């Protein structure tokens, strides 16, 4: 079943009198439990595409069906609801709330989903355990390392059991070793049945996925399955 189905999507930014075609004409489908990397050089339109897929932004033209619902026709509230329930974002800069504990950060999507406090705590705790942060739940982001922060962000993305996890350069701010750990975590999440879309400009990171979509100047250049997929050595220990 297609989770994502986009046809002839374009996104045009107008800067002064100049038009920037961040996305020129993109069509693609992504199925349940896929592990896709969106690859391309800086400025090629990766983030724009990811924001579109994550319903943070709407296309200038084209059709976007999310689970057969027409996103192009949705209003702000519907988009917020989809972001809340169906999509888990992981960002390069983690984007955690600085003043809140790890637990509260992970609880946040559940608050907006209207989940009662007890269930919220339970599920957030579970999510933090599943990324190996059971002992850091009451720490604030500034008391955590980069890798730990990214794991909190991943727990936050997971906690609503979304249809897809969207990660934009998730290892971009991490050292190689920590980046490898995070890729291990994604591999594990994929094994568990999650659908993962990864944005990166690094060939090596992209090769962890099962499918690579290469984009350049707002067009899809190539879309192929990975033959020699990298399986990370370090997998997160999960109990």
């Amino acid at each position, binding site marked *: 079943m297609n989770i994502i189905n986009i046809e002839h999507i374009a996104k045009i930014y107008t800067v002064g009198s100049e038009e920037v075609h961040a996305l020129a004409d993109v069509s693609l489908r992504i199925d349940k439990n896929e592990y896709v990397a969106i690859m391309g050089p800086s400025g090629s339109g990766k983030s724009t595409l990811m*924001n579109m897929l*994550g319903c*943070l*932004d709407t296309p200038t033209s084209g059709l976007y069906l999310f689970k057969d619902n027409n996103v192009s026709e949705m209003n*702000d*509230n519907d988009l*917020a*609801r989809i*972001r*809340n*329930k169906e999509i888990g*974002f992981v*960002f390069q800069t983690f*984007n*955690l*709330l600085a*003043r*809140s504990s790890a637990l509260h950060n992970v609880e*946040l*999507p559940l*608050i*907006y*989903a*209207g*989940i*009662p*406090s007890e269930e919220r705590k339970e599920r957030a705790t579970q999510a933090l355990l599943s990324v190996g942060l059971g002992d850091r739940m009451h720490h604030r982001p500034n008391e955590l390392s980069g890798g730990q922060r990214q794991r909190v962000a991943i727990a*936050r993305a997971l906690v*609503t059991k979304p249809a897809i996890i969207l990660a934009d350069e998730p290892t971009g701010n991490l050292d190689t070793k920590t980046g490898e750990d995070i890729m291990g975590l994604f591999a594990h999440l994929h094994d568990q049945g999650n659908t993962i879309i990864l944005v990166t400009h690094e060939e090596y990171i992209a090769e962890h996925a099962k499918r690579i979509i290469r984009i350049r100047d707002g067009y899809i250049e190539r879309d192929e399955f990975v033959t020699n997929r990298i399986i990370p050595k370090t997998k997160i220990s999960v109990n």
Partner: protein
Amino acid sequence: MKELSFELKEGLIISFNALKANKVRSLLTTLGIIIGVTSVVLMSTAVKGIDEAFQTGVSALGSDNMYITKWSWFDNDVPWWEMRNRPEVIMDEYDQYKRMAKLPLATAPSAASQQTIKFGDSKIEGVTITGVTSDYIKTTNFTFAEGRFISETESDGARMVVVIGSEIAKQLFPNGGAMNKIIKIKSNKYKIIGVLDELGSWVMGDMNPDNQVFIPLDCVFKYYQNARGSITINIRAANSQQITIVKEEAQSIMRRIRGLRYDERDNFGINQQEGLLNEIDSTIGVVQIAGYVITGLALFVGAIGIMNIMFVSVKERTKEIGIRKAIGAKSVTILRQFIMEALILCLLGGLVGLLFAVILSMIIEKMDFPVSLQYDAFVLALLISLITGILSGFAPAYSAAKMDPVEALRYE
């Protein structure tokens, strides 16, 4: 519904965290609200207090009373030098008036003088000594803590007896036991035969019976009065409907006694509490206007301050807004969150203002100024801070709510 309550709780947490993170800034911002609420509560308290004090005052003196005197209390049409040149009202005129007047419930002459009174080492200066006849009490609502009023024999015989007001009693005899003691007025000795209940209030000034002593009228004439024989004629009407005709009768009798021609002005004043009422109303009016102006200005400044700080807060937290939107916060959620923050800021300001007002009104009360803290003042204070919060929070909150999530997330 469920979502809303969680969301509001989250909003509360966020707001308090934000306030905690910017304590000084928050305090400075709410200063306007604090001042505004303090002044509105103090004003309504003072107005209420003055009003209540006046009501007790009037009822102590009797609201259906009038007073014929040389001076008109509240007449601005007659210039003061003309009043000064009027003849004194004298006992002979009182006797004639009493004979002719048919309508009053009671009449009595009185004469006042300011003197120093002493008991042992205690001394009070500038006390109003009112000389009265036994009839005087019929023109008042006096009640007694102890003893009785001056009798006919005592007033006719100018006996050295005195009835003292409650405040005088308190000052000279803090431990009680005033009855039958001998006090000195100027250099003459008087026996205390009665102590009045607490009757009057601050607003009445010299007319407050609490701060007066009463002695036989002839004693005042004999020992204290400079303007020889000058009296006040105290008149009481049976009820408020009678006031006008009693007054008209008094005016025509006095004109007859004085032999005034039809084209001559009254050369006496017939005064009523009503005059005092107008005076009090204008006092209250000034307090109210001052209060409203201060309140309005303070709240306006406060609201602008809060709006400004909220805009700063929204700007500072652009990234946070982006994050919240990315994980599913709706625009209204963000809107409510920031309005709530402004609201809490204002409510805190309002509560602090209320606290100030309560403390200040307690201090003022200690200084014997009438205050009366009202429940409506509390409600008013909270309502005002609530409305200010919503009004000043809306624009910043709206700018936060309509932020584009992608732009917001990119903000550094």
